């Protein structure tokens, strides 16, 4: 992959634009600006596992660090679990689409499904559940939206016809927390 980039730059150089420094613009193993990919899965727990593992492999190949990959996987796991448990509840498992768009310092993931619409007009605020008083009162759930909100820059939801579209935006600015 890196060789292709160099070859293209050399051609540009040969064409006489004089800007040969562009040949060194791709430090990552497969760094692509404005690259993306699309994956589909059935809306059940085991298919979600495979979808998460496939997505992580793709993001790694695009040069994201393990820290960034884990952030994305934690958020996608919660959003996908919500689709399996709430959007498609009780009905035959439908399909989930995942589109990932990689920018220079950001990642946008859009999840689409044809399940039930989110009931509230506003997305959950995602506050950390009350820790309660003592071990017996500790919460066993309610962490999903907290994790989504904590690890994303922006979350948007739209109902378009019979389709739910949840857009999750991540900043990848820091080399420690973004691209390799």
């Amino acid at each position, binding site marked *: 992959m890196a060789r292709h980039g160099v070859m293209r730059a050399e051609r540009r150089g040969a064409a006489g634009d004089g800007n040969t420094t562009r040949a060194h613009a791709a430090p990552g193993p497969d760094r692509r600006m404005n690259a993306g990919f699309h994956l589909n899965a059935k809306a059940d727990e085991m298919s979600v596992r495979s979808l998460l593992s496939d997505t992580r492999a793709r993001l790694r190949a695009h040069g994201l660090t393990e820290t960034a990959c884990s952030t994305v996987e934690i958020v996608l796991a*919660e959003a996908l*679990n919500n689709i*399996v448990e709430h959007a498609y509840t009780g009905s035959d498992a439908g399909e989930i689409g995942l589109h990932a768009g990689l920018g220079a310092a950001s990642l946008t993931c859009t999840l689409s499904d044809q399940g039930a619409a989110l009931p509230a007009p506003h997305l959950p605020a995602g506050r*950390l559940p009350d*820790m309660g008083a003592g071990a017996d009162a500790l919460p*066993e759930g309610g*962490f999903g939206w907290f994790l989504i909100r904590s*690890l994303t820059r922006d979350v948007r939801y739209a109902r378009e016809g019979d389709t739910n579209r949840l857009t999750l935006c991540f900043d990848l600015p820091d080399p420690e927390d973004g691209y390799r």
Partner: protein
Amino acid sequence: MELHETCHDGIKIVTVPEARIDAAAAIRFKDAMRAATADGPDHVVLDLSNVDFVDSSGLGAIVAAMKQMGQGRRLDLAGMTPDVAKVFRLTRMDTVFVIHDRADGAARRDAG
């Protein structure tokens, strides 16, 4: 879910052999923990060193496993991998459990 159990110096170490405690595994994990901690030592260390990923369902199941052990008993965690540690840190659940680097270290320290 099949959990591995060993006892060292009055502490039971329960090891999760699977790579994920997620929505697909949470209920099986909680049931297996109930069986593994039904009797035996009051001090149990859950070895998570094989676990790469925990989602909120898995986190809830670990909390439930601690609660279902009952009062006067103790569940520690050990061997957290980076993604698992991140979920515990973000949700502040790392303040609820005693967390050891390694399960055998937990047993040695408490015995010594």
